[in-house]
């Protein structure tokens, strides 16, 4: 069965008819063509699909699109503003927080959720916030350094 959902994605109001069983990750990638959020483990374990729903990080691969009706969704595509990278994007770039890049959109969205709640997080807070995000390249050291740098840049 299909239903009409109306939600805000990266600030823009979107209305679509979606199947009840459509996942948010498939809606974003296949319907809205926002391919930044990645399908990784496909079971809510790796965090590559992390997006913000009403400001809180959430794995889009285990979230139903229909359950997001009326909500505010933010993806990595919405982080750029007027052609400028966000503080986190810039910090990941400058501190080599990205290698293959597959986990990066999820990492940045998880970190974005953290910095909104806690603008100057401790290393422990950063590690906790990234607990649901796996990276197989960096060893996490430079990711944490990037988030620390972004937090400093926002002061």
């Amino acid at each position, binding site marked *: 069965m299909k239903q009409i959902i109306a939600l805000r994605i990266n600030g823009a109001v979107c209305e679509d008819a979606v199947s009840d*069983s459509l996942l948010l990750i498939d809606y974003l990638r296949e319907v809205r063509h926002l391919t930044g959020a990645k399908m990784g483990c496909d079971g*809510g374990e790796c965090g590559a699909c992390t997006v913000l729903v009403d400001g809180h990080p*959430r*794995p889009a691969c285990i979230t139903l699109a229909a359950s997001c009706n009326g909500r505010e969704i933010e993806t990595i595509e919405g982080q750029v503003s007027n052609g400028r990278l966000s503080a986190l994007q810039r910090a990941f770039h400058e501190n080599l927080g990205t290698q293959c890049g597959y986990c990066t959109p999820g990492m940045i969205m998880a970190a974005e959720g953290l910095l909104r709640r806690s603008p100057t997080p401790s290393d422990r807070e950063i590690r*906790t916030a990234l607990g649901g995000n796996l990276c197989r390249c960096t060893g996490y050291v430079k990711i944490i350094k990037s988030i620390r740098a972004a937090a400093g840049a926002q002061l």
Partner: protein
Amino acid sequence: MTEALPEFTLDRPETIDQAVTAMAKRPSSRFLAGGTDLIVNMRRGLVDTDCLIDLTGISELQQLSDGKSGLTIGAGVTLREICEHRDIRRSYGAIGEACDAIAGPGHRSVATVGGNLCLDTRCMYYNQSHWWRKANDFCLKYKGDTCHVAPTGKRCRAAFSGDLAPALMVHGAEVEIAGPDGRRRMPLADLYHEDGANHLGLKSGEFIVAVHVPPGDTQRMVRSAYAKVRIRGAIDFPLAGVAVACTRLASGEVRITSALTGTNSRPFLIEGFDPIGLDQDPDAAFTNLAKLVQKQVSPQRTSTIGSHYRRLAVSALTQRLAKRLTLELE
């Protein structure tokens, strides 16, 4: 590889009565809350249903109050809300710590109290893709006739893996349940059975509405905590988990209540541990508690980590928490 999500209808009732009626109309439906367990299991082909009844739009399930009569947590309250609730953390330490230890931050934003209490049991022969399970001739819990953990046994040994249940149990929580026969309340500990294929004592069409916890003591007469062992520092379900509450009684004795998860098909309270008297050696009492845990717990080979290790780990964790909390009571 995970299978695609099967087609289903999503029903979104706005009241408890509507949800009960929706289930009565289509008994093959399943109740959906945060979906962090159910959706994953559906994608693995472990759930047969063509209709989900989404409970997240029911305002009564979102209630959260902490007053003189105790703590009431609606089943739809998210784990993140509990993690961030200062009063709960102060008076019911184990409940806050258990919520901290569940999955990752993204899951806690959406996973609910009721969902964690009704978590499906887990086993390395069950939480696999359809292809994997078919190649292994399925198992007793779903579509098969043999338990691969205990092939000569007659019941499923899958382990209950919710972190929150033991934490609520040591605080004497009760669950309020709604269903076709109206509302009822029961001790949380009585909700569970030692059967991995049928571990929940909910009747057909019933779901949890709220959890009621007796008043917490703010005068440092009760201290509680939760600890678990797992492979990965986040996300993972417990290989073994324990909640402990220590209470200073009027007589001066210390009562220790502990409940376990991740080891059996149900979370359960450790029985038979007498309060520690004023003239008793506390260290000897903690050693006895550890032995009691080893005797009552029965981890099976439901994960890749051996059952003997899990037995020893949960016993050591219980002893460690009991010791720490007793000191905090002084």
